[in-house]
Each structure stands twice: as C-alpha cells, then as structure tokens.
C-alpha cells in the first residue's frame, strides 16, 4: 500500500486535546467555547461577536421577524453561532482566520439572501417593485446565466440555500420535516433527500412567494431533474411564475453537447430579459468573467498549497466557500475578489510558517463523494482525532479553465459556450455525471497530484451515480495501493446515520484496518447526536 511521510508538529498548540471535552450530551449546544490560547480564543470570540451583530441587524427588521415566524426552516437562524463553531474545531492561527474570513462572509451573504426573500415575499414584505426584478432559481443551481445582468437591477434568489443547505448545516433536524412531507405525498424514501426536501418545501408551500419568473435546472442527478416537476407545479400553476427549464447536458466532457448547452443558456437569458424587462449587459458580463477567472486562479493556488505537506485552507469552510463563490456568485459580487485574495494571503502565510492543525498528520486524504450536511465538521474532526488530513473534497475540485474575459465580437459568442461549460461542470455533477472517467479516473489522478495515500469515500446512500461505481472504486484502489475508507450517510437525514454512526465508520477503519490509535481519544466518541 502507498504510504506518505508522517508530518509531526514541532509546536505544542494551546488547548490541544481539549475539543472532545466541550461536548455535553445533556445540552444541544456545546458546554463551553474551545480554548485555543489567549490570542486565538480572543480572535475567535470577536468573530463570534461579529456574527451576532450580523444576525442582530437582520432580526431588527420587522418583516424579518414576521418571516421568522412564518417559515419553519428559519428555525436554523437561532443556531447559526453554534453552527459556526463546527467550522473551527481545533483550528488555530491562519486556518482559524481563514475559516472565519470565509465562512462569516458566507453567513453574511446567506443572511442577506434571506432578507431579500422576505422583502419580496407576498406574505411578508410584499415589496412588489423589488419582487418584479427577482429571478428564482432552484436546487443547487449555477447562476452563470445571470452574469450579464446588473445585480442592482435584477436579483437572483437561490431558494435552496436558506431552506435546505444552510438550514441543515446549522440545525441537523431541520430538513427531516420536509422529507416526511414529500414521502407522505408519495415520493419514495430512496431518492436523494436534497431535491426531495426541496420538493417537500413546495408541497407544504413553505417558501417565500416572490419573483417575476423562475429558472429550473437539471443540476446534479435524476432526482434533481425530476423534483422540478413538483416544484414548477407550485411556482407556475399556483403562484403564476413563468418557469423556464434550463437543460444542461450530462456528458459534459463530450464536445458534441456544447452547442446545445450554449443554446440553452441563450434561451435562459432571453427568458430572464423578457420577464424582468432588463437587458443583458456585456460590460457586466465580462467584468464578472474576470472575477470568475480570478477566483479560479486563487482556488488553484489554494489547491497547490494543499498539495504540500502543510495544507492551510481545507475542510467544510473550503468546500462551502468554493460552492458559494463558484455557483451562487459566479463572478457577480465584487466583494468575493477581496476575500479570495485575503484567504490566499492567509494560506500562503500559514504555509510559509509551516503551520499545522493537529499534533501530526499521518495520512493525506482525498475526500470524494458528497458530504452529509448535518455532519459538516467531520473533516476537522478527522484531522484532530486521527491525523487524517483532508487535502480537498470532491465538491472543491471544479473548473480550472480560464474563460474569455475581453469584450470582442468573437468572445461574445464564446461567452455562451463558457457559461454553458461552467453550467455543465457545476459542483458535484462535474464528477458524478459525464461518464466514469470524471468520477473514477480523475480521483486517482488527484491522488497522484496531491500525494494522497488515502481516499475517504462519502457513500451518500441515495446518490446512485456514485454508488453505481462502488466496486470499481474498491478494485482500482486496491490495484493502486490506496486506502479507501467508505463512510455511509444519508446527506441530510440524521435518522438514517447519526453523526456518531458516521464517525464510527472512520473509527472502525482506523482501528481495525490501519491498526492505529487516535491522536485525541477524547474525540473518538462525541455526544452530539442530539445537538443542533
């Protein structure tokens, strides 16, 4: 089997081996804050206060209070501070600052998104003029088709971000209700819970009613494609929102689908123009394209740092920041540029100082598959408990190609192809669809590139695209001498696999297959199954 050199931290970090002690099974939140030494604990606390100020500014608006009591998924709002702590477990120095810089920004962005939803919501804010300039996109959508619309004039509402993603991250039980609703309606329990939950929200009529039109997408899988019908029934037939289905080819590596995908993007843009009354602006588009390229360069640089013995930006914060920036933003928000560079500067500083975030790194691990939303701190736990360093996850392995960023007649035509390419290669589907090569072969290439000796395979039990290659992963990993550690879960339903059931799969593998002892035994069993 392939082995990598163990990297030992020469510096003893303040508060090491304490994280396991801050959990208390009688509480739904942690018993106390993590001790990280004076400097880092103080920094962490000030960031926590900043977060409270973001949340406070949100809730003082009367319509947001009304929305809070109207929508069930808003319950997660109460648990954001606790949720943020999941992204910083065991972190110190630059990594702590990276996690706060990236994720506090994401939280502020999502808070603003929710505020926007309530502003236009016919039931809550009922700002019709605002609502008439909103375009609803659904389920994990990539918003490249909005890159050429001025964000001050046309607003993009990603309806799944507050209802499913954020909601489940901050409160593990928050999505279960919508799954139950969907299954009560007749959808089987074996489909992917992500689109199923979103369908459940539509069935229960528990999303804000706003917008002048909606754009749906066949994003990640058959379930995601099929959920559109139920959601569109609510949007179009009951709310009267014209709904466009943006078809995105699955075999995205084949050149013979690109023209079709580009035509679909053109159609989507024309649809948005028609319903918002706003025109596509090429200046706006190419400015956004420059930002997309800039973000791509920063992401590549971060991956390069992670391929060294001293990774800096990793875990859930890396994944969710990339997700937000690549898909939800797609170059439209200028604020991301400064954040990208700040994050890169922090990572470079940490790398130069050879900062480590555990006592030792025993294994270099690629995390493949789709992570469970309700166990978002898993990767931090893995490095703290077992010294398994997650170099990158599948969702962060996205486009590395530059798109046209100079406004010329040729590039305007190329732009549709670029948007189509990005749209086809959106997060998750760029690996789970498009043939086995992007799922299986690219994993082994990445292992080589990042010098990984281990793959942690999230086996999301309803992700048929991934589990359909189970045997191939097994056999090919064996042939290459890569340790492959299967960890099953059900994405956003903790009733199927609890958090500890998920961690126990790692515990078992590390103890029985690798015959290793944990770096921090206090973390092996954490009483957080009932915690938010």
């Amino acid at each position, binding site marked *: 089997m392939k082995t990598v050199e163990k990297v030992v931290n020469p510096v003893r970090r303040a508060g090491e081996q304490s994280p396991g002690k801050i959990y208390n099974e009688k509480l739904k939140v942690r018993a106390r804050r993590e001790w990280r030494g004076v400097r880092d604990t103080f920094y962490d606390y000030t960031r926590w206060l900043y977060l409270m100020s973001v949340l406070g500014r949100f809730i003082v608006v009367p319509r947001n209070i009304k929305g809070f009591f109207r929508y069930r998924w808003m319950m997660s709002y109460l648990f954001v501070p606790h949720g943020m702590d999941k992204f910083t477990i065991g972190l110190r120095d630059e990594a702590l600052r990276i996690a706060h810089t990236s994720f506090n920004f994401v939280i502020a962005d999502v808070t603003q998104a929710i505020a926007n939803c309530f502003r236009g919501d016919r039931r809550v804010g009922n700002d019709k003029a605002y609502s008439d300039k909103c375009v609803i996109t659904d389920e994990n959508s990539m918003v490249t088709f909005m890159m050429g619309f001025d964000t001050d004039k046309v607003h993009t509402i990603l309806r799944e971000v507050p209802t499913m993603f954020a909601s489940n991250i901050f409160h593990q039980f928050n999505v279960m209700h919508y799954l139950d609703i969907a299954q009560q*309606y*007749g959808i*089987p329990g*074996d489909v992917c819970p992500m689109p199923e939950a979103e369908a459940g929200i539509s069935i229960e009529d528990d999303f804000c009613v706003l917008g002048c039109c909606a754009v749906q997408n066949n994003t990640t899988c*058959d379930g995601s494609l099929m959920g559109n*019908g139920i959601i569109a029934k609510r949007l179009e037939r009951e709310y009267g929102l014209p709904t466009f289905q943006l*078809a995105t080819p699955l075999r995205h590596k084949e050149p013979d689908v690109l023209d*079709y995908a580009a035509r679909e993007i053109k159609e989507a843009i024309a649809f948005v123009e028609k319903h918002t009354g706003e025109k596509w602006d090429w200046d706006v588009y190419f400015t956004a394209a420059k930002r997309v390229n800039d973000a791509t360069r920063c992401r590549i640089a971060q991956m390069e740092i992670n391929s060294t013995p001293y990774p800096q930006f990793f875990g859930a914060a890396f994944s969710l920041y990339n997700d937000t920036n690549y898909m939800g933003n797609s170059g439209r928000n200028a604020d991301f540029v400064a954040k990208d560079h700040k994050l890169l500067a922090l990572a470079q500083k940490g790398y130069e100082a050879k900062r480590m975030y555990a006592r030792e790194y025993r294994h270099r691990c690629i995390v493949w598959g789709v992570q469970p939303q309700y166990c978002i701190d898993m990767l931090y736990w893995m490095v703290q408990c077992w010294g398994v360093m997650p170099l990158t996850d599948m969702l962060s392995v996205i486009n590395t190609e530059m798109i046209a960023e100079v406004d010329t007649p040729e590039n305007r035509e190329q732009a549709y192809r670029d948007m189509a390419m990005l749209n086809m290669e959106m997060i998750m589907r760029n690996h789970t669809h498009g043939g086995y090569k992007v799922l299986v072969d690219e994993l082994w290439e990445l292992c080589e590139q990042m010098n990984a000796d281990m793959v942690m395979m999230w086996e999301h039990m309803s992700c*048929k695209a991934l*589990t359909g290659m189970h045997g191939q992963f097994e056999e090919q990993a064996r042939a290459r001498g890569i340790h492959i550690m299967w960890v099953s879960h059900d994405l956003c339903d903790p009733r199927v696999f609890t958090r500890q059931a998920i961690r126990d799969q790692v515990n078992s593998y590390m103890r029985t297959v690798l015959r290793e002892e944990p770096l921090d035994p206090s973390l092996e069993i954490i009483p957080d199954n009932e915690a938010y």
Partner: protein
Amino acid sequence: MRDLKHLIYFENLLQEANHALIAQARADGKVCVAYTCENVPEPLLNLDRACSIRLTAPHTGSIDIATYYMTNLLCEPSRALLERAIEGGYSFADCVITPDGCTMMNRAVENMELLQTMGKDKPGFFHEYMEIAFKNTESDVALSVLQCTNHILTPLHDNYGIDISDAAIRKAVADHNRICELIRAIGDFRKEEKPRITGYEFHVLCLATYVCPQYLILDKLEETLEELKTREPDDKAYRARVLLVGSEVDDSGLVKLIEEQGAFVCCDRFCFGSYPGRVPIVLNDGEDALTQVCRHYIRNCQCPRMMNQEKVYGRKQYVAELAREYKADGIIYQQVKFCDPWAYERTLGAAMLQNDYGYPVLSVDRPYNVASSSGQMRTRVQAFVESIEIKKIQRGGKHEDR
C-alpha cells in the same frame, strides 16, 4: 379463448436474453446492436445488416455480483443486466449503445465496459454513450441528430461498414413501421368491450418486438393478427379495465398477476411498451430521414426525464387520453424500486390523474422480477380492483366516461 397459435413460441423467446433468434440473426451475418433505453431511435439500430436487441435479464435470480459493483441502492434492472453481462449472457452483442438517460442504467453499462463483459474477441466491438434530449424543441432535435450521427451512425459505419445513407434510414423506418402497425392493430383489439386478446398476451408479443431481431418475427406477428381477427372472445366480463403506466415491465408475470385478479390490462404506457414505442414514424420527402426520425422520438417521447412543462403536464394528459380511448376504469402507476425518474413521475402522475382527471389510481413500486414479491403485489391489485368494482356497482355497472 382458444390459445394463440404462436404464443408459446413468443413466450419461449422471452425466457432467455440470448435466444434462438439471435443466434439465427448472427448466422445470417447480422450485426447485433445491444441497447438499453427506449430513447435510442430504434430504426437507426436496424440499418442495413444491423439489428437491434434490447437487453433484458429474464428469470433474474441472484444479483450478488452486480450488487457488489453497484450496491443494493441501484434499481434492480440495472443490476440484473450487469449480472447477466458478467455471466456472459450478452456475448452475442457486437456493440452496446446506451444513452446517459437514467443514471443507473448508464452506470450498469459503464461497469459492463470496465469489466470487459462483452466483445473481447470482436475487433469491431464498441461501447457508445449518448446525450439524450431534455425537451421537445428544435434545438433538442439538432442535439439528437448530432448524437445519433456521432454515437450510432458513424461507429456502425466505421466499425461494421453499415450503410447509413438516407435511403437506408428510410428503409429501416418502413420496416419499423410495419412492426408498429402490426402491434398497434393487435393492441386495438384491447379496446373492445369483450377483448379478444388479453393484456398478458399482448405484452408478450410487444416485448418480443424489442428483444428479437424484428425481421425474424414479422411473419408470426402477421399470422397472429390474422388469427385475432376471427378469434372468439371469452364471454366474461372483467372486473376492471386498467391502464398500466410506469417503468419497464420485462416480466410478463406482472401483467398476468394483475389479470389473475380479474382486471384487464387494456393499455400499456411504460418504457418499451406499445405507447409510445410502437407509434409509426411518418416521413416526408422534404427533409432528411435522420432529422425526421429524431424529431419523431423527441415529440413522442413520454420519458419522465423530459423536463419542460409542456412535456411534464403533457405526459399526464397523454395517460388520461389513453385511458379514455381504451375505456380504462383505473390506472396503475408502477415503478421498479429505486428508479428515480419514475419515483417522481409516479408521485405527480398519480396525484394529477386522480385529482385533475378523476381516475382511480394505484401507485406502487415493485421489484424487477415480480415473482419475488407476488403476494404483496397481488394484495395491492386485489384491493384496487375491488375499490373500482365498488364504484362501478355504485354507478349501476356502467363505465364512467371522463
């Protein structure tokens, strides 16, 4: 009713994936084009010396090896096909063409490719994967034309020298239409008040047209049609006429089981059924045949993965129209367990057909091989038939026109 002369012959053909007619076709010098999805335009697989064979896995028992490769979370048809391929059951295939239609079937074929289950001794053997249209626009027709050219016509021509000219396509369409016309004519007898063909018999005949080289069964289908014209129907009333909708039904035992409960399967609207798979293709001389074939498949496609609203609601309308045409008393929406597309389609379809169109609907999932859970299915169907029957009695025994 008197037994159909060729029924046992056709039933026997369905007992094996690699049956006698495939051997005969190979002996005739045919190129066997294996495929797995009804969205692949069938006439293009029957050009010149090529003949289409749809992959099925009759009498599926253990699927343990396939389950190792794909886990028990994927639909049984995809695992059954992979298992059969690993066992060597599709050694006849000269190529496999499959769309990235549903993920699970796509993964099954990819596993077949990676495990080299076929074609080791065939230099021209190839696997091709196609993108399938999502909507019914002209843009989708253009996509389909390009995909068929790149992934069906060109490889067939380059690897096996198959004639892919416009004339060859037109001939294949004419042959295809003859099969469609026969199946439709046979199926039309199901509209009769006292039908002279059972749903089970029709299913056997229809399924045979997908899994057999069509040119080898044409004469027997023609003979069966003639036989039916004079066949005396049983003088018995069925308890309920039902329309069967959903994912592929490769096990005729399902239709038999439904009919054993006193129902009559008056129409079929499932993958590889007669609707829309056996609707003839009308060609004109003003446009190339390939484009017209692709347009036919896209316009007529009833696959749940077609995602634009016209198609989403059109599918329910289509089922309602069939139910009306075939005088169905109720509709059975069925889905092979773990099939994502039909899981959603069944849910929305069942709700809309019941609430918007007023049909009683049984919505049920099932295994690929129905025999493995016939008791459960029997109970569900019995209850459904009884509920329809009670409603009928309440109406004075009359069929309800909707």
